[in-house]
């Protein structure tokens, strides 16, 4: 048992992640061709527009359809539909928590591939200043609120104002880069258009293509550029505290060397600075556990499932990984 633990703790998390991410990418982007269906409440960007390749549907798509609901239908079977959708989403999240982002999300994986390409080309990356980081991270919550409120205002007139136009439907999907990027992996570029049928449609789809252009540059220059703004991540963070998979820290063993912070693609400063909290799952964390791998202190950081440590920082593991990297 001890040897097994030492083996796991000494594992090369990057390589492990690469293969798991690739596996999930194939499953979620092409699984539909093999009639795999994981339902329509997945807490990850298994894009609903990727038909027939998708192996399940990103929860944000049905959520935006479901919240297009008149007031008087909320207490009805339609309201019940919203509740069951949310409960299924939470059930998925309850098990894997934000590791859906670090290991399963196809759009997250694509961003990691873009980062690898940039590193291979020897181009340096950009980071946000702390000030900008704090400001920008709020955007995902604003997007989350808008993607619920806009469909609702399409079905309900508030204060006598006219309802919002039909072409505002699924507003976040219109600007989500996954709508264009993920179907492209199955050869479907039909989403790469601007829809001129109405002014609203042209604005929304034009905005979508604008975001796509920014996504390619941003994702190349910044690690996990889009994830900072992702409303799925905001929705995760509302429930992540109760999930079974956790990132734990033993502050008494932390020397605040900052190695974990430097390894973190999401610029989470608290991972190094916070020596008080026992559980550290910040809203931007994607549970990649690169911080655990980069920590040289025995048991300071650990990933645990139902309270059982599954991967923890060890001195031996740290040096094993360092030596391997130097050899490469």
């Amino acid at each position: 048992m001890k040897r097994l633990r030492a083996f796991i703790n000494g594992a090369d998390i990057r390589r492990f992640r690469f293969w798991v991410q690739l596996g999930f990418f194939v499953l979620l982007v092409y699984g539909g061709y093999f009639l795999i269906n994981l339902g329509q409440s997945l807490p990850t960007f298994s894009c609903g527009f990727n038909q027939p390749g998708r192996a399940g549907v990103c929860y944000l798509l049905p959520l935006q359809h479901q919240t297009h609901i008149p007031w008087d239908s909320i207490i009805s079977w339609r309201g019940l539909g919203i509740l069951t959708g949310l409960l299924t989403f939470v059930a998925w999240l309850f098990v894997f928590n934000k590791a859906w982002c670090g290991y399963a999300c196809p759009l997250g994986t694509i961003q990691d591939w873009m980062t690898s390409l940039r590193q291979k080309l020897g181009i340096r990356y950009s980071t946000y200043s702390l000030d900008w980081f704090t400001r920008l991270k709020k955007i995902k919550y604003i997007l989350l609120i808008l993607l619920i409120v806009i469909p609702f205002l399409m079905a309900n007139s508030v204060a006598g104002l006219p309802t919002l136009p039909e072409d505002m439907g699924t507003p976040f999907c219109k600007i989500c880069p996954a709508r264009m990027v993920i179907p492209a992996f199955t050869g479907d570029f039909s989403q790469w258009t601007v829809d001129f049928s109405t002014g609203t449609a042209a604005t929304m789809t034009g905005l979508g293509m604008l975001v796509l252009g920014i996504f390619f540059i941003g994702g190349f220059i910044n690690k996990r550029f889009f994830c900072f703004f992702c409303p799925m991540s905001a929705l995760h963070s509302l429930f992540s505290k109760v999930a079974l998979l956790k990132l734990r820290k033993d502050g008494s063993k932390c020397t605040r060397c900052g190695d974990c912070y430097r390894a973190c693609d999401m610029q989470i400063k608290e991972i190094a600075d916070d020596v008080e909290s026992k559980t550290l799952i910040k809203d931007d964390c994607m549970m990649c556990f690169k911080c655990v791998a980069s920590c040289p202190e025995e048991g300071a950081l650990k990933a645990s499932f139902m309270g059982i440590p599954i991967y923890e920082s060890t001195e031996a593991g740290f040096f094993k990984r360092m030596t391997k990297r130097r050899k490469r």
Partner: protein
Amino acid sequence: MAEWRYWVIGFVLLSGGLAGSAQAEPVWFSDQPPDAEWAKRAHHAHGGMIERGRGGVYVKRLWLRAGGEPASAVYTQPADDASFGVFGIDGESLAPDLFKVASGGGITFPMPEEGFYNAYFIERSVEDAVLKTSIVKAEVLKHSCGEGHDPKLTASRMPPRDRAGVPLEIIRERLPGEDFHTRIRSGDKVGFRVHYKGSPAAGANVSLTTREGWTKQVVADADGRAVFKLIRDYYPAWNDFDKRHHEAFLVTAEYRVETPGELNGTPFEKAHYRATLPGIFYPSEVEYSSYLVGLIVALIAAALGAGGVFLYRLKHSRAGRERLQ
């Protein structure tokens, strides 16, 4: 198929008498309500207009209309002795209700499960020693996104079905890769098969008429197939353009056989069958969407982003030194 089998199944399908008069004008099913009063009850759904029954179950109301052009066809009443039937997603027989109101009439039936329902309404009469049979058919889709998108279930429910016992039947072939969300659009080629008593009706005259009255007639080939390319049939002022606009088509098939027989004691020397099947299609996406503009917008955004990063780095050349982790 043996003649007796067709009549026996037909009799089961067609409860009630068979003495209705086949009309001179083609009769067909429409789910469009005839007036504002009925329109209030109807909601848009995948597969057309629906009403909601107990517990939110989708209920389809199909109105009978007479006339070869969808735009000008009148709402008509079913004859008292009319014959009708509806078959559910597994081909099971359902019991539709016949309705007659001041503005028209037709049938209604609940659609509890996802998939295609086939509705039929058949009238027969003998005129001048010719058996005239009008077979009105609608193929109705029930799909609600709230019930999920199980690809296995969808694939199993996509194949079109015909009905043994219906004398002449038009069957719409599916588009490549069609699922419950697929929209037929102008510019698409849509194939139909015409079956006479379950076998291909080679030589049947098949015509497709759009709402605005454009008509094309073809003769069904040896497999009973007729293929039509849907033209553009929607020319609004540019600022009234609606990409969700339902354009309508009506397919009519006519088939004649020289087989004598009798209907309720009235002899006939030959038979004339007319089948109808309505459908809807949408404007083509190429009419309102542009790849070129999309790419230009994305490229401009990417170029501005890249330029911005480059200029920023020129100014702050010390920033962003990457550490190997």
